[in-house]
């Protein structure tokens, strides 16, 4: 009973869901199916954020990624008439080129390196000013908000300008002619 806690079970389950859904996202031929599996991945990762005591980020993940960005992607898939799946060019082989396969293989080898690092890392240094007990006493959202409007106020304002520029740029690019 004490080998694995309830949080451990939830973590393993949501990690498996995230990996499976992302593999399905990367392999489905129909982009709509890819987008829907991507939403499943985002929800599984929101559960993991909750387990890591990051409630604000979990809610933002669901609202920004699973809500806004994926809705935008679904709209664009329908705008460019991809909802029936990728069109195949007749007379052209569908298999990826050899160079691409080699690049993917190298990426997988580098993934092994990351996993080895994750197994044998040794974290050193001084702990920060926000241990979990302290943050839980105040509340996660309140702590993040105090940091955003205090220590990180200037980057926060820059982010708002970036969002404004992004909105204007998207409208200008898409509305030309």
């Amino acid at each position, binding site marked *: 009973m004490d080998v694995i806690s309830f949080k*451990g079970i939830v973590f393993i389950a949501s990690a498996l869901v995230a990996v499976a859904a992302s593999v399905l996202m990367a392999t489905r031929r129909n982009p709509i199916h890819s987008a829907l599996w991507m939403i499943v991945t985002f929800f599984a990762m929101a559960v993991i954020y909750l387990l890591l005591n990051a409630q604000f980020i979990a809610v933002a993940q669901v609202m920004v990624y699973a809500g806004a960005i994926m809705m935008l992607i679904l709209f*664009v898939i329908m705008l460019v008439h991809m909802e029936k799946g990728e069109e195949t060019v007749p007379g052209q082989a569908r298999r990826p080129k050899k160079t691409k396969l080699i690049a993917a293989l190298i990426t997988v080898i580098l993934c092994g390196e990351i996993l080895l690092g994750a197994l044998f890392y040794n974290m050193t240094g001084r702990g920060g000013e926000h241990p979990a007990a302290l943050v839980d006493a105040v509340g996660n959202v309140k702590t993040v908000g105090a940091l955003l409007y205090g220590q990180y106020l200037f980057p926060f304002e820059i982010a708002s300008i970036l969002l404004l520029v992004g909105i204007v740029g998207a409208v200008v690019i898409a509305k030309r002619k």
Partner: protein
Amino acid sequence: MFEDNFTWLCYFLSGILFTIGAVGAILRRNMIVVFMCIELMLNAVNLVFIAAGGSLSSMDGSVFVFFIMTVAAVEAAVGLAIFVMVFRLQHTINADELNLLKG
């Protein structure tokens, strides 16, 4: 092994998700799916930020993830507008067929 310490497991999961995203971005042709794979890679990095911030008892990880999400939202809006524009001009968003610059 699993007593409420997920840090290395989170690094593990993040590495796997990042690799899936990178391989998908390399192998797929449809630009929208490539874009979704890039979003998956951003999410994997977010997971590392949260896990490391938690294990170092620091809140800076959450703040950084907030900014990464902002940049990802802007990137999504501008990138998808570019896709719509490319589709209007070329009538395809297949990455292998967009080779006007190839010479």
